[in-house]
């Protein structure tokens, strides 16, 4: 896995390689959305270049992350840039996990083909299909690794590459000002009952 820059066109061509043409045509908007995101992010310089994953690998990992913390009416792992967090983690603190990702991606591919022989790629499946694949591997070390890294990427401080614009913190209502004053919550703001136990 190395840093590679590619034109948008060659990236898309490569990503779609090996796919059943009819299937690609049917699912193209979804594939495009997934690939477009990684592509534009890396090309526009908004994000650091991928250091470990190829763009194609990043698409697969991001598809997994986006199922772990999906996007609904609020942003999910995709918008939080979890895949960039993971990529960076694999060059630093999680360096030892690189082989597990390489192997895991191969296994993901195999499982995808086993369940959906025409699909070719996990990222190219529909959301329902992706959930089916992940449900089958959710007990595997690889899934747990990606789950752990996705969650960390979602909630760790943004300077590590994920939690983009504090998306993760916003979801759970976490105020990161590190300086709080009482009342902190609902219950301590209410009048307190008189207790008889201990006199000050």
């Amino acid at each position, binding site marked *: 896995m190395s840093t590679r820059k590619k034109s948008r066109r060659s990236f898309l061509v490569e990503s779609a390689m090996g796919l059943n043409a009819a299937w690609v045509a049917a699912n193209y908007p979804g594939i495009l959305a997934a690939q477009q995101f990684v592509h534009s992010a890396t090309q526009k310089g908004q994000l650091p270049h991928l250091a470990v994953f190829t763009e194609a690998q990043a698409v697969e990992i991001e598809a997994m992350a986006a199922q772990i913390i999906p996007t609904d009416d609020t942003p999910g792992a995709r918008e939080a840039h979890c895949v960039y967090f993971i990529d960076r983690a694999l060059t630093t603190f999680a360096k030892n996990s690189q082989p597990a990702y390489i192997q895991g991606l191969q296994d993901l591919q195999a499982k995808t083909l086993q369940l959906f022989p025409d699909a070719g790629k996990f990222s190219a499946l529909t959301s329902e299909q992706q959930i089916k694949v992940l449900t089958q591997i959710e007990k595997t070390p690889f899934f747990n690794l990606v789950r752990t890294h996705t969650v960390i990427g979602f909630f760790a401080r943004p300077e590590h590459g994920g939690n983009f614009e504090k998306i993760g913190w916003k979801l*759970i209502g976490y105020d990161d000002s590190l300086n709080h004053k009482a009342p902190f919550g609902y219950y301590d703001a209410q009048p307190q009952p008189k207790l008889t136990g201990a006199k000050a």
Partner: protein
Amino acid sequence: MKQYPTSQEVDFVVIGSGAAGGIMAKQLSTAGFSVVVLEQGGWGKYGREHEYNKDEWLARNVSEEDRLMSDPSRQRNTFRHNDKEKATRGSHSYGCVVGGGTVTYGGSSWRHMPWEFKEASYDSTIPAGTGMADWPVTYEELEPYYTQAEWEMGMSGLRVDSPFVAPMSKDYPVPPVPLKSSGALFNTAAAKLGLTVVPGPLAIITKPYMGRAACVNCGICSGYGCQVRARSSSAVTMIPLAEKTGRCEIRVRSYVREISTDSSGRVTGVVYFNAQKQEVRQKAKVVILSANGSESPRLLLLSKSARFPDGLANSSGVVGKYLMVGNGGGASALFEHPLNEYKGVISGAGIVDYVGSDPKRGFYGGGRLTARGYLTPLDLGLDGLSPEAPRWGAGYKKALREEANHRMTINCFVTQMPLETNRVDLDPDVKDEWGLPAMRITLTSHPDDFKNMEFFRKKSIEILEAAGAKKVWAPPINDTRGGAHNRGTCRMGNDPKTSVVDKFHKAHDVPNLYIVDGSSFVTGGRNHPTMTIQALAFRAADHIIRNAKKGNIRTSV
């Protein structure tokens, strides 16, 4: 900072700079003695505490340089439940930085109850065959030193009149931390159940005190260094004062491997590994061992000689025995409205009515229930949701949204009886990174300890339900395998045949060796050891200084 040549015999070597070692260093150097403190860990962010980060990801991937706790992959240790088992790799870890565990602890500062010092003769519920024994020190003797510690370190709290809280001769220097929602829910439950809620006494200042700033309720608290120096650690209270005397040198990355003795059985100094793992000798007239309740006995066992074949100060054979590491239990719950428990200190309020043992329960045991929330974002996301919550997908995200800030947890701090079979010794096979025999922990709690944990688990559920919880869950109880609350392993007593140190912490067998830390505990209290360690340290220092000033330190302490 003062620097002593290693060739110079100093008055005191203090091994460890934590709750006890920091106090010993400050008291002895202030009294005019030359002191070298040997700290196994590094400086941390000593003197530049604002650089402590609040980064959960970095905290999980801390560099050796920035570590604040020992590293079980270097300070290797093994664990087994009993003598029949082969010990396997353990995860025991303790504070390992200038200031020791006080740099990162939650700061709970409960005093022992007066009767906890004579529980063995006072309490009819104690079963036969345990190591429960009376302390040679009374609460009345220790009370002035609790007060001294509270005022010199800077503890916050509320002095209350309650049969479940130790009486105090003086108020706390600063008021208690603000009520949190978990404390308010304790109040709700206590009003219904007729219980007693007390704001947790904490080593966290709530007003500027002794040149330090008040807590800002940042919320990334226990486990992290305090950026504003509000946590009253040894590193921001005692050590700076010790350094300021010009008579105290703190030597970091100094891992003591032996306390050396001469043929007459007196301590002559220590041998330690420096940062480069080279052996260095430091001579001292007196050695104070404050390395914590697990490392202190280990070092004594490592310090074997012809004169002390079973380890130093171990003619009784009880060095390392009667280990208590701390038991807990508790429950968690979700509530309708947000609590935002991530704000503020980790441990706000306590329910104290069950501190004593009660024959009606049918077993020995007691403890305190503390109100906690403290789920930082990563803790919540990785493993902090209620047990049935999905681990990924739309359901996971929904649970994150719904449960975040709506949860509180009760953590109980309860008794664990000292048992002779529970102990620290040297692993016969495994070596640590320095090539020394690794610490081996053998531990199974007494059956009454388990019954007590179960009692507190059920109480926790009852209290959360009374507080109006929407959903309550409680993991099954278990006893711990290690951790920072090690006690009992060099127990204090009047009889040299059954104890390691006397009532002033002097080793029965060695005239110029003092052992001052959690290892001195005879019984474990309610697993909130630090306040008592600190009071004992101030008292021991007083005694040592008084005697040392009488003449030749080497012979008069």
